[in-house]
């Protein structure tokens, strides 16, 4: 039951990828979707066995690499963390498959799309079910590849190309750090299994590694690099610029990859490596700081975006920040819980946005929509549900996880905890603001678009409808029903999957935080929602005056341009490396020095020498005999000199000098 869970989507990918032309779009759709749905049911079964019954499953299939010390197996590890992720992944993926049958029905490349989706699902499942770092890294790279393929699905579009390359490159930076972490781990632990490393981690607490004459604590080093890998994948601050640009792909792609699964791989990694992080408190602090900053930053940028999908993307980024900083404060379980919840309602939001875009004839700018409330009522209701879940409306899914995160953050009672709390709370305020802004601008305000466009917006009963339905339900209920199981006090749902150092337990402290701090996030978000509702619906003129004032313009451009991160990256790094690569390494070194030492130089030297040799043949006997006599004289005198200086001179140096002299004379003619 477990192996087909992982490999069914691979089968779907292979068959659809290779024979898509023959089975046609319908066949592709049926095949892949059914594979995914079967996988989902299998993962439900796995959840029952592993999560509910508490018996993790370890499967070792075969040996991949076995070379002296290095032993890497094809192994699968199903424990609680894994099955939670599996359920999330398969559920969202199957619904996305279903959705995209309808959404991409007009696209002639539907089989390819479905195969890429299946491929992505397969790699994601490999990532979460791996039992050693290398296999996880295989999945890691695989999802990067799949995201490239999917973002670049409409590959004739230049913006899509650019976005895909940007995603790939920024992911690569993260991957590089992850590789360094894995290698350092291998060098010191001599193993890359989770089990072995987890068992050995406590013994390496005090060990240092010496690099460039500096000593680093080894666990801190590994954890920092692991975290940077997660930063790349989960679009934390610093390596986040690819996420909004990745909206160039089709909407189902955004739903699958950038809402539910790929971006959560980073959080999954941090949670999985809790046994390492817990012994490196410094890195946890870094994690917390960065996560909190991301949460705040992304929500501030999302305030003033105009593209529908970009807003949702920034909200994803911000929620990822929440998850990351909660892990950074040693609350891994809560982070994973928020991950699961967030997957549902974010996928719902994305798919709903897709439905909207489909309805207004592929118009993505929010400012040109409006008044769709009565035209597409089901979509409107679904979007509202999603937004309310996102802002943490009491008793919906998001409330349980998000508020718990903030409570626990405050309950840590450390500077980092408080820092994260304040940033998170303010971020919640901003999140509420822009979520409501989105709903208002899209549905509630007076229509701002073309009549011929908006007039024809309509609903259909189709796969989209089913998918949205099926996503709306968990968005509402999953938080409440699973809260006790996953993050309840004293629950051992995550038995050995997540390791918590007893020093960092602060559940009970958080329970007794002051009421003000407990109620602040909810209050602020409700205020924010109300404020935005009020402003956008009724008093948009205030906003207009504010926007066009001097300060407003500055703030607007600052936030709209994503705090100028893109500009800095492009000019400082992009241009520099581009120029360097061309002029320096290509022209001067590759085509210059290496060519001259290599083929071009050698052939020109050879030809020059050949020409000179040809000229030496003068045809005159005098010259010939002169050469003969000169050589005799030279050799005799050399021999004499050798006899005199025999033990003082090393003749090899002289030979080298002679030969190099010869080459210097002959080079570059």
């Amino acid at each position: 039951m477990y192996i087909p869970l992982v490999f069914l989507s691979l089968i779907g990918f292979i068959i659809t990828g290779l024979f898509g032309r023959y089975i046609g779009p319908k066949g592709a759709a049926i095949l892949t979707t059914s594979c995914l749905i079967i996988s989902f049911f299998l993962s439900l079964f796995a959840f029952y066995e592993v999560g509910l019954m508490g018996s993790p499953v370890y499967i070792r299939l075969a040996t991949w690499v076995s070379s002296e010390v290095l032993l890497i197996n094809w192994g699968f590890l199903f424990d609680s963390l894994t099955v939670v992720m599996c359920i999330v992944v398969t559920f969202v993926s199957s619904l996305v498959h279903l959705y995209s049958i309808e959404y991409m029905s007009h696209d002639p490349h539907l089989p390819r799309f479905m195969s890429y989706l299946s491929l992505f699902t397969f790699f994601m499942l490999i990532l979460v079910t791996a039992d050693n770092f290398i296999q996880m890294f295989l999945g890691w790279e695989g999802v990067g590849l799949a995201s490239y393929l999917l973002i670049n699905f409409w590959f004739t579009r230049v913006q899509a190309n650019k976005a895909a390359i940007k995603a790939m490159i920024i992911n690569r930076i993260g991957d590089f750090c992850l590789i360094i972490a894995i290698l350092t781990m291998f060098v010191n632990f001599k193993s890359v299994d989770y089990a072995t490393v987890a068992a050995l981690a406590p013994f390496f607490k005090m060990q240092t590694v010496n690099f460039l004459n500096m000593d680093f604590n080894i666990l801190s080093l590994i954890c920092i690099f692991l975290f940077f890998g997660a930063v790349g994948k989960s679009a934390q601050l610093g390596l986040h610029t690819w996420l909004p640009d990745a909206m160039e792909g089709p909407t189902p792609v955004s739903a699958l990859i950038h809402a539910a699964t790929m971006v959560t791989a980073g959080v999954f990694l941090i949670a999985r490596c809790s046994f390492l992080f817990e012994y490196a408190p410094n890195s946890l602090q870094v994690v917390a700081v960065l996560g909190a900053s991301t949460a705040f930053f992304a929500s501030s940028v999302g305030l003033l975006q105009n593209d529908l999908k970009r807003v949702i993307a920034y909200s994803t980024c911000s929620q990822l920040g929440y998850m990351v900083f909660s892990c950074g404060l040693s609350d891994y379980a809560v982070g994973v819980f928020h991950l699961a919840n967030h997957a549902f309602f974010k996928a719902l939001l994305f798919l709903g946005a897709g439905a909207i875009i489909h309805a207004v004839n592929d118009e993505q700018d929010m400012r040109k929509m409006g008044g769709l409330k009565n035209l597409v009522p089901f979509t409107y209701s679904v979007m509202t549900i999603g937004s309310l879940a996102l802002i943490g409306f009491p008793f919906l899914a998001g409330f349980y996880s998000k508020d718990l995160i903030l409570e626990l953050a405050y309950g840590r009672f450390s500077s980092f905890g408080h820092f994260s709390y304040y940033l998170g709370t303010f971020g919640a305020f901003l999140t509420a603001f822009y979520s409501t802004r989105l709903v208002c601008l899209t549905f509630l305000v007076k229509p701002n678009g073309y009549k011929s466009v908006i007039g024809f917006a309509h609903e259909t009963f189709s796969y989209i409808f089913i998918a949205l339905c099926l996503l709306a339900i968990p968005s509402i209920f999953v938080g409440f029903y699973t809260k006790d199981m996953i993050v309840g006090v004293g629950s051992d749902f995550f038995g050995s999957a997540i390791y918590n150092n007893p020093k960092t337990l602060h559940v009970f402290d958080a329970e007794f935080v002051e009421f003000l701090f407990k109620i602040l996030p909810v209050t602020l978000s409700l205020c924010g929602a109300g404020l935005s509702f009020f402003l956008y619906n009724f008093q948009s003129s205030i906003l207009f005056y504010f926007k066009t004032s001097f300060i407003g313009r500055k703030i607007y451009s600052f936030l709209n341009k994503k705090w100028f991160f893109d500009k800095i990256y492009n000019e400082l790094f992009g241009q520099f490396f581009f120029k360097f690569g061309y002029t320096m390494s290509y022209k001067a070194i590759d085509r210059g020095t290496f060519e001259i030492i290599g083929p071009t130089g050698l052939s020109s030297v050879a030809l020059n020498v050949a020409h000179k040799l040809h000229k030496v043949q003068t045809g005159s006997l005098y010259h010939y005999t002169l050469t003969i006599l000169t050589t005799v004289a030279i050799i005799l005198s050399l021999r004499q000199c050798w006899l005199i200086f025999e033990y003082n001179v090393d003749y090899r140096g002289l030979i080298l000098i002679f030969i190099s002299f010869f080459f210097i004379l002959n080079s570059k003619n």
Partner: protein
Amino acid sequence: MMNQELFQIYHLKEMSLSAELFLSCSILQFTFYAVSTAYQRRAGFIILNQQVYYIGSLFVILSLFLLLNEDLLIMNSFNSNNFIINDYLSFATKLLICITSVAFLTIINISFRDEPIQNNFEYVVLITISVLGLLLLCSANDLITAYLAIELHSIAFYIMSAFKRNSSYSIESGLKYFIIGALSSAFFLFGSSIVYGCMGSLIFDDLRMFFSLLSLPTQNNLNLGSAIIFDPSILSCSAYLGENFQTNLPQPYSTTPDNLLDWCFFNYEVSVLSQSFPSSFLQASCNEDFLVYPIFSYFFIDFLTSIFILDWIINQEFVNGLFLIYYDVSFIKSFSAFEFFPSLSNIAKTSIESSLSIFYQISELYQVFNAPILTPIDCSMVNLDLVSIGFFLICVSLFIKLSIAPFHFWSLDVYEGSPSTTTFFFAVIPKISLFVLLMRLCYVSFYEIFVNDFQIYFFALAVLSIFVGALGGLEQRKLKTLLAYSSISHTGYLLLSFSTGNVEGILMMFYYLAIYMISGLSFWAVYLFLIQKRDIYYNKNNKELGDLVLLKESNPMLAFILAMTLFSLAGIPPLVGFLIKIGVFSVAIKSSAYLVSVISIVLSVISTFYYIRLIKILYFENTLVGKLYVPIRTQKALLISVLALSLIVLCFDPMVIYLLFYKAIFIAN
């Protein structure tokens, strides 16, 4: 010689060169026949064109039979006063020369129909005489014989290269060859006169014995020369002394002994001496082998003085051995052989010091005689400087003849200007006998001088030849000059493997020579076969690169054969040229000549360019039509196909020729 009386009846057999004898007589007869036939005005100047070649090849084949039927064991004892040596090496090389000459004569056998106007029976005479000279050179054991044989075949070569009297190219090349050849003869004679002046004998065997006795390794790294060490008791020794002195009175010589050892050891009395002592003496006293060292001094002792010294020395207390002194009264050159024998029981480290101290004592006695006092720093008591110069000059002369760079300039002009058949003969056949002479010179007689002083220069010259051969051919358009450059580079490889100084080097060198001759034969055969079907008046015989164009159209078999030959020359597997090049390089590397090997490998790669360019012209040129050629006769086609096939077959089974020389080398050494 003392044995002369016994064999006076068999004076003719003393020649021991039945093959050469037969060849010379037959040449004389043939000249008479040809002159009388071809110059008769009455009969209209009969053209003897084809039969002369047949007659010539008949002669060579018959002498080959004679060669094969000689019994080497008997032959070696009749060696004409040590001027001719008839061991297995000379047999093998003579075999090779004869076979290749027969092949050569078959190839250049052109009927009157194809190459009119030339009634040149003298060509065959010249060829056979040069073959005779080469055969004599192979078995020369003496510098005079070698010189005469060199002159014999060189003069034939001069005429052969000036053969076309109405072409100024030909005459010019003949003249150049003649002058350079005269210069090389001058060097040869100068060198051999210096050697004679220093050594007193020109026979290789004598020189070998002298040098080998001179530099036996001693314990303290001193080359004292040698000393015969005995340890008799005093009484019996004086008796022996008296006896030996009387028996050692010299006999009058009417002629100078031509054996250097006769100078030193005076009719093998030494061996008599060592056998005349009862073995109990030796066994009682010696624990190790006793060493035989003759020492040569520069001072003269006469009879009385020697007795005086002897008495004095016997009375020394640190000596418990005796000196056996004898001298040669009748020598002409003011040499004396002076041997003294430290005791055997001190044969450990101190024996040399004791003998040295004794020697110092003796030399102190001779202060009045202004005798030179030798210090340990002058390793050898015989100063080898002048002999080295003589040896080197002889080697220079041979290098000039072999066209080793930087003495190679003549060969390019001569090869280009001579008629094609002559160049064929030059390029292929004389090298082997010159290398045999070089081998006898360097390895048999002057080995110590060669190894100690001149090996580096030989390596340098070899690398220089490879360099010139590789790089000079890159720019050549004329085929003959291209072949000249390639033969220079091959001679460089031969010299490279020759100058390694060990047995495998020589073995590889001979093997290389054999393969080189085969591939040379094959290439030149193709070259000569391509007689263009044209007007006889425009018969320009010097082919350029363009003359071979698209041979695969007009004669695909010839093109294939030429391609195989060129691949073999370039050293490309699976042809045998690759094996020999690998052999040469491995031998060079085994004797630790790393820099030299690396340089020559790189240069060998460069030289493959012009071979492959030829193949490209044969097969892949872009012109429309090739050239039309006269068809070849069956016998020649058979011969050339055998040659080409042997090149391929030998790669799979190279031991055939290898074994031929294996025995030769070991017996010669």
